[in-house]
């Protein structure tokens, strides 16, 4: 009885204190669905390019609040060897939904479907707008929120992803290398 009580008291604490899942330094093997068929992540992340992978949620207002910032990022860095892709890992993800969302939001980058959520699991994505920045050699160098804003985009926000990209382009290490993603919980099965 005492042991059972101790377990009930201690177990949630252990679970809560467990470190959050961290993205590996190398990208995992994963296959995503694009409008032209399945694509391996290794094909999407082009060697010599910096790649921004953002976990997308169609229904999250935090996502919508960041649409402009994502569009600007993609356009501003397109000619500097930076690729942006969004990944829909939520329940019901499909190429149709991904294509429609990308069109309606005027994203100049694709949304890829991850219907099993395998990539989200592998990279530790639990919340919408969680973003991973991959360097030219395919190593994950930043993981976390796009910036310090949630649903109200402000001028004085810390632009974590943009700063990470800037630093990688000049050969410096991102700082910070990790930050909290402030979006909605990704809706999984």
């Amino acid at each position: 009885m005492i042991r059972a009580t101790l377990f009930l008291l201690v177990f949630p604490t252990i679970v809560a204190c467990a470190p959050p899942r961290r993205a590996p330094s190398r990208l995992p093997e994963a296959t995503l669905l694009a409008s032209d068929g399945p694509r391996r992540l290794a094909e999407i992340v082009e060697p010599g390019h910096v790649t921004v992978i953002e976990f997308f949620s169609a229904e999250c207002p935090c996502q919508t609040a960041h649409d402009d910032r994502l569009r600007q990022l993609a356009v501003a860095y397109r000619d500097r060897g930076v690729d942006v892709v969004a990944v829909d890992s939520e329940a019901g993800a499909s190429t149709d939904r991904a294509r429609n969302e990308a069109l309606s939001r005027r994203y100049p980058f694709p949304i890829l479907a991850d219907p099993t959520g395998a990539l989200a699991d592998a990279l530790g994505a639990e919340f919408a707008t969680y973003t991973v920045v991959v360097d030219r050699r395919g190593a994950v160098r930043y993981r976390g929120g796009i910036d310090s804003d949630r649903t109200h985009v402000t001028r004085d926000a810390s632009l974590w992803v943009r700063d990470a990209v800037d630093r990688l382009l000049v050969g410096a290490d991102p700082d910070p290398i990790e930050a909290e993603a402030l979006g909605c919980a990704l809706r999984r099965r």
Partner: protein
Amino acid sequence: MLASRRADAQSCCAGASALTPARLALHEDALVGLQLKASDLYGSFDGGRRYVAASAGAKELDFEQDLAGSVRVLKRGQLSAIVPMVETFRSVPGLSEAGGDLGDLQLGARWDFTISGSSVIVPGIALAAGVMLPTGRAPEVATKPLGTDATGTGALQASAALAFEQTFGPWLVNVTGAAAWRAPRIVGELHSRQGLQFVASAAGGYSFASGPVLALTLAYTAELDATINGELIPGSGRAATRIGIAGGLPLSDLWRMQGSLATDVPIHFLGWNQPASAALTLMILRSWS
């Protein structure tokens, strides 16, 4: 056809927290808030569950200002405290008075086992516990003729609640069950104790794309018979049915407002040994992430 541009407020936002004062939203680490409450007592339910309107010339208005604060502990837990200041205005034909002071301090803890909206199958499940300390002035200690300087229940109260919450696109559904235990207290030579209290509540809300959330709330409270000197007093239990609307308005990522309008349902059988009132609350909160 293009997908809708609609972005429904989910758990990153303050939608769910609008139902519970001082509840931290996802990603919030702390908050402080000031809640203003005003209520009008317009009638009562008698021992036969009949609703009776307040008699002509009798009036009671209650006001409350609550200072509330919450902090996150570990990843899924939060602790909260509410310090209320209570004022009562009461009048009967030929006499009216007002009084007030510090009310009963409320301390609470909440643990979210799962987060609403994170699974299409498993809802958000949370366990909450609370303690209300008798820091207010008990009715038997009040000195004013109409007792308006009574600001507390006079008894320690402990409660536990289990809440289930789920989002369906812009819709939010919350179902909560709670039980409260009141410590015995001594009034003169009497050793009295209120019965166990049970509360079942449900809320359905809609989150607008621009951020505000609006919810309908329904709560049924039932209280078992009280005891005096260990003897059960038949027919001394209480019951109330309360409906309301609650809303939240995010002003920025750091500031938000919440409000509610709730009333007992003045229909026979929906209340028992209980005053009937309508209450308006307004709260402004500042959070830290």
